[in-house]
């Protein structure tokens, strides 16, 4: 059973990553920076539980706050660039954050061994779950509490006026401005909410893998972050969840028996999915 719990944990963590991109994509901003907020959440929460000895929940809260704060800081300059320029700017920001953690050393002696992030060699022993005797099943439930909370919040946003305004900005910024929508507030708030969700996801990821290093948060992860909502469709939050299940559960785990052919199929199936359902599994922005 452990394997299925583990798989459910991975799906949960990647759903949080996908949701963080979902809300930003609603406003029409194609962002490749979600992996950076994910990394910030991972390192922040990891350091707090390992070095600071915090309980996991406040540590995740801090991860969300750090993620949100950075996202907010990125949100403002991001207003100045559109379309491809935004893609490149956020991609460069993501690489910048990855390189920051590549050079980031902060070790504290705990007992006889030194613990904490050590630049290129990464950050070892983030074993909060194991040390506190949480079984794989309990960890899965814990992760999915956050996933369901985030999905409920975003579902609520979607049904509220905020959701309509987000989509209006995504549709036609000029028209939205003309009916009185404050573009800056909407786009930056979407980026901030995305940053918070990515921060939580990152914090959980750090404790799931127990060792994180700069290479985990590379360009490919940033691409996956936007792949989930796009492949799944931007109609609602379940699109992202469906895409995460398609990629993580079916493509990566389900086809594992194919051995090395699986990776070949991986790219081909994404291309096929996009050609068959360009608007995403659950329908989406364009009828």
């Amino acid at each position, binding site marked *: 059973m452990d*394997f299925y719990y583990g798989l459910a944990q991975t799906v949960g963590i990647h759903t949080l990553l996908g949701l963080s991109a979902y809300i930003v994509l609603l406003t029409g901003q194609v962002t490749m920076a979600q992996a950076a907020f994910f990394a910030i959440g991972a390192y922040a929460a990891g350091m707090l539980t390992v070095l600071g000895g915090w309980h996991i929940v406040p540590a995740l809260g801090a991860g969300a706050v750090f993620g949100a704060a950075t996202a907010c800081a990125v949100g403002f300059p991001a207003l100045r660039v559109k379309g491809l320029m935004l893609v490149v700017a956020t991609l460069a920001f993501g690489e910048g954050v990855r390189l920051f953690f590549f050079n980031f050393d902060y070790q504290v002696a705990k007992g006889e061994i030194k613990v904490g992030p050590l630049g290129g060699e990464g950050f070892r022993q983030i074993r909060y779950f*194991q040390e506190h005797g949480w079984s794989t099943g309990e960890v899965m439930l814990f992760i999915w509490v956050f996933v369901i909370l985030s999905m409920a919040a975003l579902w609520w946003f979607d049904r509220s006026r905020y959701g309509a305004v987000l989509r209006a900005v995504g549709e036609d910024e000029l028209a939205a401005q003309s009916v009185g929508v404050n573009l800056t507030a909407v786009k930056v708030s979407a980026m901030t909410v995305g940053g918070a969700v990515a921060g939580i996801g990152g914090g959980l990821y750090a404790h799931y893998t127990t060792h994180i290093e700069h290479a985990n948060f590379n360009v490919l992860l940033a691409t996956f972050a936007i792949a989930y909502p796009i492949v799944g469709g931007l109609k609602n939050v379940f699109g992202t969840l469906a895409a995460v299940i398609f990629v993580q559960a079916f493509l990566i785990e389900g086809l594992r028996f194919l051995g090395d052919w699986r990776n070949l199929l991986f790219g081909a199936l994404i291309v096929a999915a996009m050609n068959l359902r360009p608007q995403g599994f659950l329908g989406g922005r364009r009828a």
Partner: protein
Amino acid sequence: MKKIAVAVALAFAATGAMAQEKTIRITGFGAKSGVVRSFGINSEAAMLAAADVINKQGGVKLADGSKAKIVVDFLDDRCNAEEGISVLRRIYGTDAVVAVGPTCSNVAEPLFGILQKKVDDKGDSGLQMPVFTDVAIKVGLAKISEWAFRNVPNETTMYSSLFYWLKTKYPNAKTVFGGVEEDFAHSRASWYAVMKDRAEANGYQVLGNSKWLLNDTNFATQVREMKNANADIVAISAHPFTTCGVLKEMQRQGVKPKVLVGLTSSSSLETLQGCAKQAEGMIIPTSFAPITKEGKAAAETTAKFKGAADLHSMAAWENMFILKQVIESEKISGDKGQLQADRRKIRDGLAKLRETKGLMGVTKRTEDREADKPYLFVQASKGEWKVLHNPL
């Protein structure tokens, strides 16, 4: 209708009989896709070859005296941390008694992290599954968990012996300059914690080192640093792709040190295929060369399973024979009910081992579940790795 039911029943009985013959499952996992795909292919081939040899000799003796065939399957983790973890959990769910792998050090670190740290620590809910690593070579990983064991060369002793030997062979070589693949965990640890350390310990003066990244392609400034340092010995702690890049740039800038030293993982076909001319004369300590009788036999059998024999895949071959020895010495029951008890016995068996018979001679096993393997120095000459010196 009745006739069909009878036929079906018979069929079941037949397969039932055939299944009487017991099996022991050993599951390997490693990178069979992605850039280090060749390591995964070779490890799988070596494991299948070893299992084939063992099964031909009658398989392995279980606690109740019956013989069991070894069944090997191999899962691909794409050299990715998350997949390594879910692969191990998948293996934990099968009837495999031990997992052999992974290939990449950046997978081994998180993997050993989710294992139970101390064996009988009830408070630690980490996975209780013995993992016997064949390839991931970064120094000091096994101490992360008492369920993790490694049969990988101990780079510290190898490079210490190499620098000691170089002292005698090239007495006028006094200075060393290093080159490090800064963002690859294994290469980085092997320079700072191993080569630099051991060189200084053997009286060499380390003038410094230049750094580059795993997928760098322009080494102009690094090689110029080397040129300015003008050291007698240049030690490159990097994998084949960038090693070749640096060697070609050194040729362009006319940098010709007296002695060229390489990283253990670069003593493979890849380096020779990439830059045989420039790598001429490079000396690398390695824990395998097909010079002993068993070594040659192992290499031939592995080749039959379409795998190349190098220090990594031959470690997988040795793992299989060590596990056979442990299964028999620890009286593994082999029946599905006792699975967790069997796994615990294998763990304890591996922990007890102080010596194992390797392809190159006796391998000593250390207190913290690492291996101290016999080694030798190979040198690249005319497109082949030839044995230069066998210190043992």
